[in-house]
């Protein structure tokens, strides 16, 4: 099987995010970058699929800045076979990203049997790329997948929807599968894996190489700002048993009359 995984490098979840000087994006100079957490499930699922289908290869593709290629190297150290990097700026929109991924996959010369992605990137939180990529490649897709079984190129997938309900899909290879937390437990890159990763192939392309032009931009962001701080709330001390009932009654009254939420 030709297994592809699309990953993104995003700021660490614990990183403090602040708008940059002109509000055109965030301040990226002191950010610690990690592999998008949902993409780790995609890499793991790709490796599991590879293990179940001898002779398979896992190619990991990333579109993004080149300051740090940590995420790709991590995927290789986890066990992916080769990597493709498409160089771009930090804040590419979903349409351009999907188009670049499509171009990179096609340029690899391998016809994908399955493409795994995370269900969303935790930076722009758009949840568009997997479905867009599938549409561009003319493939079916299933998103927010929490269970994945494969047998002879046929995938049975459980997609999580509202209320914890699961939609069970059956889809034949090739397909795009967007992975959610809970699908598997991503392995660590082992230390021997890290040593081996440096010898694995890493192809590098520009956006133009994969057929993406400035005119492909669809979404324009501006005016990045911190969310407004809420004014200080009201705080009541109810450690003392004597005033617990009255404090709670007061808060309930406020919720009903001042905040009007119950």
């Amino acid at each position, binding site marked *: 099987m030709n297994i592809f995984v699309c990953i993104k490098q995003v700021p660490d979840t614990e990183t403090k995010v602040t708008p940059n000087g002109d509000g055109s994006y965030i301040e990226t100079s002191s950010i610690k970058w990690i592999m998008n957490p949902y993409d780790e499930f995609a890499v793991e699922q790709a490796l599991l699929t590879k293990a179940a289908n001898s002779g398979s290869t896992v190619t990991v593709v990333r579109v993004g800045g080149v300051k740090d290629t940590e995420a790709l190297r991590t995927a290789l150290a986890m066990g992916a076979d080769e990597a493709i990097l498409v160089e771009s700026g930090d804040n590419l929109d979903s349409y351009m990203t999907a188009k670049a991924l499509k171009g990179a996959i096609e340029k690899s010369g391998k016809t994908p049997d399955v493409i795994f992605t995370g269900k969303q990137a935790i930076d*722009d939180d758009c949840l568009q790329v997997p*479905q867009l990529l599938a*549409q561009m490649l003319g493939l*079916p897709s299933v998103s927010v997948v929490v269970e994945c079984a494969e047998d002879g190129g046929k995938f049975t997938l459980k997609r999580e929807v509202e209320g914890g309900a699961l939609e069970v*899909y059956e889809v034949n290879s090739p397909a795009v599968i967007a992975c959610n*937390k*809970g699908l598997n437990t991503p392995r660590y890159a082992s230390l021997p894996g890290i040593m081996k990763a440096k010898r694995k192939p890493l192809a590098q392309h520009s956006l133009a190489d994969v057929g993406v032009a400035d005119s492909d931009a669809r979404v324009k962001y501006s005016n990045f700002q911190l969310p407004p701080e809420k004014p200080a709330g*009201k705080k009541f*001390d109810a450690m003392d048993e004597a005033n617990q009932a009255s404090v*709670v009654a007061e808060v309930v009254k406020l919720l009903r009359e001042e905040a009007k939420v119950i």
Partner: protein
Amino acid sequence: MAKVLVFAEANGDTVKSVTFEILGKLAGHDVDVAVVGDMGGNAVADLAKFGAANVHNLKGDNLDKYSPEGYANALKDFIGSNYDYVFAGATSLAKDLMPRLSGMFDAGMASEVTNFAFDGDNFAGTRPLFAGKVLAKVELQGPKPHFVTVRPNALGLPENPTAGAGASNDVAASAGEIRAAIKEIIKGASEKLDLTEANIIVSGGRAMKSAENFKVLEELAEVLGATVGASRAAVDSGYAPHAMQVGQTGKTVSPSLYIACGISGAIQHLAGMRTSKVIVAINTDPDAPIFTKADYGIVGDLFTIVPILKEEISKILS
């Protein structure tokens, strides 16, 4: 004036309330609604009440239940070049469907906006990025129609909605080739609204101390019609499943009321719930960071406060 289509999901007579929020915000525009599959007459009436001019009901083989390709094919044909903008609530279904549909038009899409406005025919939205740590203005360019999904509960329901004509129109639609189809739906353990859609959320943190203790929160949630959530610390400790996690690596929520019980308010958690309209925090530590975000803070032990809260609220609501 821009021609706007709102994609709505109807379950019999019930339309998801985010649709009404969008219709309310679009008051003054010429707005059609499209529903795929069966819908009840009351749904049409409700949509009209909130401003729908025409309610198009797309019907055809294999459109009685959702499939990303079937719905996208049907809507693509229907939309054609008739609309400038297509809106939808950012529900599980629409988040899956809309990107594929926008791709069919090579068009741009703004995901999960929390507010928007039109300047003439031009859309400009506000949306949170980085799990709500920053906000940005989002605009769309390139081929039309432009697509927008709106986060549930962000706009709020209009107080005095402007009614529309609400003309009902059946459209014969074709699902085309469907390769990824739903074979079965497994009901979730909870019949409650998903966290991302819930209007009220009661969440527990590490201080819950055990999975069993979440019962206290469930009882309160029962009275409020709320959904129960959990902090990452509670999930990591095995007190709650990941599906219940609110925070940067869990769900980002913006209910109208968020009650945080025994949650200290790690940055990770705040990122997931800071856009809640009203936040109530219950914690024994008066300096817990959650209190800096809370509209109403109660310094006290959740195990004594929550039951009193439940009693007090059921008194008021009965």
